[in-house]
């Protein structure tokens, strides 16, 4: 099994997807190295990617100083899933050198727009994941939800 496939199966948000969808996801994922201290997403900037952690430690923080540290392989970082404006709501800083899959945001949203059942499944899992990992972060406005379905 490829590393991409293995990791997708670990991601809570994608676990209910069909194999064919997971294969399509693989095609829009790009592996990159992140370096210690690197800000690879900045709050307020245009959001181009979602992220899946392969290795390393990522600190997600808000302007108020609230933060959560992702350190498990398969952690999904994409709190902008519901934001139609596509603006990063948080800053992502790498606390150590690591590997991250960058998931093209626009291609991903276009993909799930094709199938309302898949979109619903992803959104349900995402809500649950959101509550589990960072319930203290203000949920992005639901303005984009309609466009996803």
């Amino acid at each position, binding site marked *: 099994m490829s590393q991409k496939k293995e990791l997708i199966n670990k991601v809570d948000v994608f676990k209910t997807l069909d194999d064919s969808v997971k294969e399509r996801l693989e095609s829009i994922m790009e592996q990159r190295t992140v370096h210690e201290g690197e800000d690879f997403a900045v709050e307020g900037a245009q959001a181009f990617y979602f992220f899946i952690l392969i290795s390393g430690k990522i*600190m997600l*923080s808000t302007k108020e100083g609230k933060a*959560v*540290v992702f*350190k498990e392989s398969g952690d999904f970082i994409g709190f902008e899933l519901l934001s139609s404006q596509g603006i990063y709501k948080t800053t992502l*800083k790498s606390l*150590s050198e690591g590997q991250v899959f960058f998931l093209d945001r626009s291609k991903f949203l276009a993909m799930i727009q094709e199938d309302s059942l898949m979109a619903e499944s992803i959104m349900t899992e995402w809500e649950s994941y959101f*509550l589990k990992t960072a319930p*203290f972060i203000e949920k992005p406005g639901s303005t984009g939800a309609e466009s996803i379905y």
Partner: protein
Amino acid sequence: MYGFDAINANNGWSIAAVGIIIVFTGLVMLSLIISQLYKVLEFIENPKRFEFLSRKKGVEKKEKYTLLFLSKNQKESAKQFSLIIKTMEEHFPLPKLLRLAEVNGLGEPYNNLTTLLDAGIVEPDTEGYFIWNKERFNKLVS
């Protein structure tokens, strides 16, 4: 005997008072149950959303303290971090701690901060801030 005399003679006032208390207590309890009913309905409709309640403890236990011993250098760094912590509030923002570590010229602030996180000396609270676990610090550093 009739009227107020009869009420007084048969403890009517206290019985009435007990009756009022029982009725009002019942109404308050009923309103509390109704006000929370939406949570039960939400749970019935979408139990997956509540999985984190049962999973969280297990995950925390598994993830907690992935580092059980500190090297001499790591202990020294933890002591330096503890000095910075003294200037901060009990529940502090993690990015601020990192920034202060950099400003104060602590060696390898990122690496040492992750060491503190792995050792459980710096721990997240439930509000997105972090706390300094003195017990862990004393155990691993002293």
